[in-house]
Each structure stands twice: as structure tokens, then as C-alpha cells.
């Protein structure tokens, strides 16, 4: 029975490893392509001559550094907005009993189920009427709002897991609920806040479709949209250059994810299990 189990385990592990290789292959492939000489990418998978020229070119010519800067601004800005707003709301929902609480809960749930696609084009039309197009404000607000349902979902779970006695203790010491929030609860839920912030940051950083529609002014574009443009603007096969751009865009997400995986997973799972 035990050797059978061992063999089964071995088999499963082998299968999983193969599966993971298949999953990760495209990512590795794009990295390999980015180091290839121009037009050499399709003759061999592994570069014969490794070169950094595409990365150098990306950051010395043209708008790519600007695009990266824009991405940083939008991603961080949006994440800050959504994390802070959802923290406040989640605290209220987890701790307080008030009229309309059920309504709020359903509302947030409902918003979670509205695909972003539906609202982007009206947002575009409204923003253009308000002359908000092509500003940093617009996309930060939109990203901020998009992240709120998920943020509330995750943070409510975190807040709920903190025993009430802590609040009570603070109140006995004479603190207002808000003070209790900032000084006692919040520090403890830092993992939850970080998780929410990171998830939102990565989601915003990678967001492609929404900024494609809402930001059309060339030098306000995000890196993801810029990449899409590159494909059209670049004449001739410049896939290696595009690959370098892809890798640059991928790096923050990959690094954040590998080192902070626990935060990510915890956030998602807490929300999934308790939401």
C-alpha cells in the first residue's frame, strides 16, 4: 500500500512538474526572445548571441520610460485610493451594525459582478464631456473604484478575524471608534492592507483594456497600452524589442508575486472562504 502510494505520488509530482513547465513556457520564451539579436529570434529558441541592446534601446529612445512612469503613477495611485477606501468601508461592515448594512453588502457584491467592460465606454463618454480625458486623475479614480469591491471582500474577512475584545479594550481606555481603528485595529491588519494594496497594484499595472479606452493621448499612456501601440507603429519585425518591453512590464508583477506570494494568496483565500 505504501509503495503504491509512493509511486502514485511520484507520478503526480512528475505530472505537475510537466504541467508547470507548460504553463511557464511562454513567459520564459519571451524572456529568451528579448535577448536575441534582431530577427534572430525565430531561428533558435536559445539565443546564440545574447544581447542587451533592446533593453538599452527601450530606455534611451522614445516614449517607453514615460509609459513606465505613467504606469507607476496610475497603478500606485489607484491602489492607494482603493485600499484606503475599502479599508474604511470594510471596517464599518465588519464591526458595526447599522441600518442599510445588508443593502451595502448586496450593493458591493452586485458591483463585483458587473464586468468592467460594460462601464468603460460610458465612462469615456462622460469623461470627455467633463474634459477629464487624458488626465492622471481620471484613471486613478477609475482604478480606485474598480479595486473597491475586491478590497472590501478581502479586508472584511481580515477585520472579522480580529477579536472584538481589542476594540472593547480600546474603548475602555477612552478611544473613539476612529482612534481605535487607526491605532489598534489597523496595525494588526497590516498584512491584509498590504495584500489588498498589492493585489490592486498588480491588477492596475497589468490593466490593458480600460486604459486603452480611457487614455488616448500618447504621452499619458500606460506601458501596457504603449506595448499595443508599438506593435502597430513599429515597422518590420521588431519582435525582440517588443519582447524586451514585455519583460520589463512583467518584471514588477513577477517579483512582487514571488516575494510576496503569501500576501497575495492569503488575501484571495481569506476573501474566498469568508466572503
Amino acid at each position, binding site marked *: 500500500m505504501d509503495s503504491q502510494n509512493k509511486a502514485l505520488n511520484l507520478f503526480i509530482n512528475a505530472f505537475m512538474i510537466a504541467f508547470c513547465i507548460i504553463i511557464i513556457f511562454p513567459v520564459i520564451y519571451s524572456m529568451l526572445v528579448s535577448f536575441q539579436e534582431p530577427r534572430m529570434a525565430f531561428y533558435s529558441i536559445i539565443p546564440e548571441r545574447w544581447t542587451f*541592446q533592446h533593453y*538599452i534601446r527601450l*530606455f*534611451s*529612445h*522614445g*516614449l517607453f*520610460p*514615460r509609459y*513606465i*512612469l*505613467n504606469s*507607476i*503613477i496610475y497603478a*500606485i495611485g489607484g491602489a*492607494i485610493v482603493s485600499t*484606503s477606501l475599502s479599508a474604511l468601508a470594510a471596517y464599518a461592515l465588519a464591526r458595526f451594525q447599522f441600518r442599510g448594512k445588508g443593502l451595502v453588502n448586496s450593493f458591493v457584491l452586485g458591483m463585483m459582478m458587473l464586468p468592467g467592460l460594460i462601464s468603460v465606454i460610458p465612462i469615456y*463618454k462622460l469623461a*470627455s*464631456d467633463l*474634459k*477629464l*480625458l*487624458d*488626465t*492622471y*486623475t481620471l484613471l*486613478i479614480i477609475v482604478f480606485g473604484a474598480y479595486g473597491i469591491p475586491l478590497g472590501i471582500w478581502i479586508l472584511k474577512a481580515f477585520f472579522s478575524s480580529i477579536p472584538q475584545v481589542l476594540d472593547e479594550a480600546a474603548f475602555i481606555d477612552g478611544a473613539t471608534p476612529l482612534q481605535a481603528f*487607526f*491605532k489598534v485595529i*489597523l*496595525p494588526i491588519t*497590516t498584512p491584509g*492592507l498590504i495584500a489588498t494594496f498589492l493585489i490592486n497594484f498588480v491588477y492596475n499595472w497589468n490593466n490593458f483594456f480600460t486604459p486603452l479606452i480611457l487614455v*488616448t*493621448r*500618447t*504621452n*499619458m499612456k500606460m506601458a501596457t497600452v504603449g506595448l499595443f*501601440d508599438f506593435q*502597430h*507603429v513599429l*515597422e*518590420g*519585425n521588431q519582435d525582440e524589442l517588443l519582447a524586451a518591453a514585455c519583460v520589463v512590464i512583467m518584471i514588477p508583477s513577477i517579483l512582487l508575486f514571488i516575494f510576496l506570494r503569501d500576501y497575495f494568496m492569503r488575501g484571495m483565500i481569506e476573501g474566498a472562504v469568508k466572503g
Partner: protein
Amino acid sequence: MRGKKLSILIAVLLMATLVLSACQPAAVEEPVAEPPVVEEPAVVEEPAVVEEPPVVEEPEVVEEPEEVEDPGVLRFWGFYDLTNEEDGRAVQMKANIDAFEAETGITVQYEQVAWDVMAMNVSVAAVAGGDLPDLIMSGYEYIQGMVNAGALMDIYDEIAVADFYSDLNEFEKNLNESGGMRYAVGTFVGGGQWYYDTEIYPDGFPETQEGWATECERLSAEDKYVATFYAGRAEAAMTQGLAPLVWSLGERLFDEEGVPQFDSDAVVQAIEFWREMYNNGCVPEVAFTGDWSATEAPFEDRSAGAYRGGTWSYIFVTGLQERFEAGTVAIGNPPALTGGDQGWVFMNVENFAVTSRAENVENAIKFIEFFMNPANLAPWANSNFGVPARASAMEDPVFESKFYDDTLANLTRNGQGTETSPYYNETMNSLSATVQDLVLNSNLDIRSGLESLQQEMILLYFD
């Protein structure tokens, strides 16, 4: 605690900004003897949360010479990435802009907008109240759409008094002037052009449907294609590929009011022709499914005997110039569909246009005049391998070559101005998707597909 977190984040953001903005090493291995590349010179945007306020400078118009006045700025949207040193057109544009700035003291605020989205961006900005520059570039076929969107300014009066006006060639005037109004100024004329391999076609390039079928049989045996051309899902594929075929039968894609007539017999026949070529392998598959550069590849590696490019093809097709000068590639006549007597190529003029909300109209006109100076126009047209719109610029020695002789002959004999319509972009784009479907799927009925497209176009735009 929260404040601490915020300030950490802000510090990180600032550091990142500093690092990235410092990260501009001089260009390393560029062959062209140019100084180190600087990022786009004139576009200054502060990463602030506020939209860039419109630049309002003192107007240029002064009666008597005054003391020092600020010459002002010119906001200009152009096609090219001015930091790209491998594109002759970008290099030339940059040189012209620099010279203009030096001569007039006007600061040019340049922004790149790709040629295939320029008209869209401009029209949308006009309609939605967005930011419009003073001056833009545009191909001729998009002008009417932009006029309809209220995006362009009528500059007939300003141009009629310009010193280059009398020198403009008739083609340009015909296209850009109508009803006493003029919305654009053409800089050079370009158009489609068929290049063929003289070794594959020693007797010349076939100009009829039957000719193509015959050559196809011969060449298929050698694993070669009759020709390659871009026929993908883009409006340009229709303008450059389908429209001339329709013209060869004496029909047009739009009527005089710009209403599409996509379900005519001519269009059906054109699509049938393409479908036949696709199914029989006379034209490579990438012509219909690939992108521009994938389409050029078969001609570059000589597996296709001909290529329908344009006057600009030297820029994009590797080795074309060398082969033409060596005599192994020649410029041929376009094919006509059965029942038509002559094949056509489209002809186009590239324009400057002043937007309806331009704030620096004088500077824009000055720029146009500067550009139309033969000393500036000739190299500009040449960098695009186009024919300058001013006769006097044509006398520049840079145009004395077999290439220009043949090009001029081609455009004169085979060229026809592109059609236009208030909804050119939209309808042609939809047409290209339908055409691609019809060519690739032989079990679809061409006529009914076109009829339903035609109906939809009318309902959406013209009803």
C-alpha cells in the same frame, strides 16, 4: 502607521521617477553620424494631476515692428517618432522642425500619433471636446471625415495668398480645393506601385486576370507566387488593393456623396478574384492574414514574383532599392479585372491641416510655408520617395533618377485619386473585415455577404 506607509510609498515613487528620468544613456551603436539621441525634444508634460493648460501666447499679427515679442509655439501632431534615426522620414522631419525653430524662434511642441489613428484621434478629440493641436499631418482620404467631425479649419484664404500657391500642381488642387474651401495643403504625391522581379517575369508583369492564372500555373510548379500584397483587415488594404480592382471595371466604391456601394458587381468580381488567388495558392496566405511586414517577406526572398507596394516601398522593403538599381526589379502596370481595359493604382497626397480649434494659426501657416519652400520640400518628398506637390521643387537634382522617372510615369498613366467619404474610415474598415471573411471562407456567398454589409453601413451612417 498609515501615514508611515503612505510616506514610504511616496518616497519609493519619487525614487523611481528619479531613477527612470536619469536613465537615458547616449545611443550606442547607431551607424548614422548623429549626436547622442535625446528624448523627444519639445513635448513638456509635468506629471501633475492637472491637465496641461492650453498654451496661449501673444498672437503673431503686428502692424508695425515692435520690440521683442514672443514668437509663440506651434502644437503639431505628426506621424513619426523623431528619435528614430533609422527612418529617413523621421530624420528629415526632425531636421525640418529644427530648422524652422531656428529660423522663426517658434517652439514646436511635437507629439507622435500613428498615421492609421491620426484621423480617428483628431475626430474624436474634436467631437468629444478633447485637446486638439494646431497642425496635423494626414493622408488625403481622411480629410473629409475630419471635416465632417468639425475638426479642421478652412484655410483657403490663407493659402491662396501664399507664394507657393501658383506652383501647386493640379492634382493637389483638385483634391484639396472644392467649393471655394480648402482644408489641407499637400506636400507630396504618392501612390500604389507594382514592383516585379525581372528574372521571374522576363516578358513583363501580367496585367489581366487570365495572365495571372497562366503565370500562376507556371510559377506554382516552381513553388513560387504570382505576387504578394497586403490585403488584411485594415482600411488601407481596401484603399490600396480592392479599390483599384473595382476601378478597373469603371466602378467606384462610393458615390459622389460618399455613400458606399459595396454590393456592386465589380466588388463581387474583385473578391472572387482574390478568393481564387488564395485558394489556388497564387498569392501567399500571409497576404490576407499577415501584417504588412509579413506580406513583404515573400517578395524579399523572391518566392513571389511581384509586390504591390507604393512609392514609399524603398523605406520598408529590404533590398528593394538595390534590386531596382541593379535592374532585377522593375515597376510594372497594375492588373485589371476581366472586362476592364486598364488597371489602376491609387494616388494620394499627404497633407498638413490646421485644426478648427488651433490657437496658433499664424504659426501653423508659417510652418506650412516653410515646408513648401523647395529647399525643404524636396528633401521631405524624397525621404518619402514621393513627388513634391510643387513643380519647382521637382527640379531638385535629387529627383533625377530612373526611380522617379518610372514612378512619375506610373502615377501619370495608372494613378487615380483615392475616393473619399464622410465615413471613409468606418465603412472601409468594416469592408475589410467582411472581405477577409469572404476570401478565407469559400463556402460563404459573396454577394449576400456584401449586401448585408451594405445594408448595415447605410443603417449605421447614412440613414
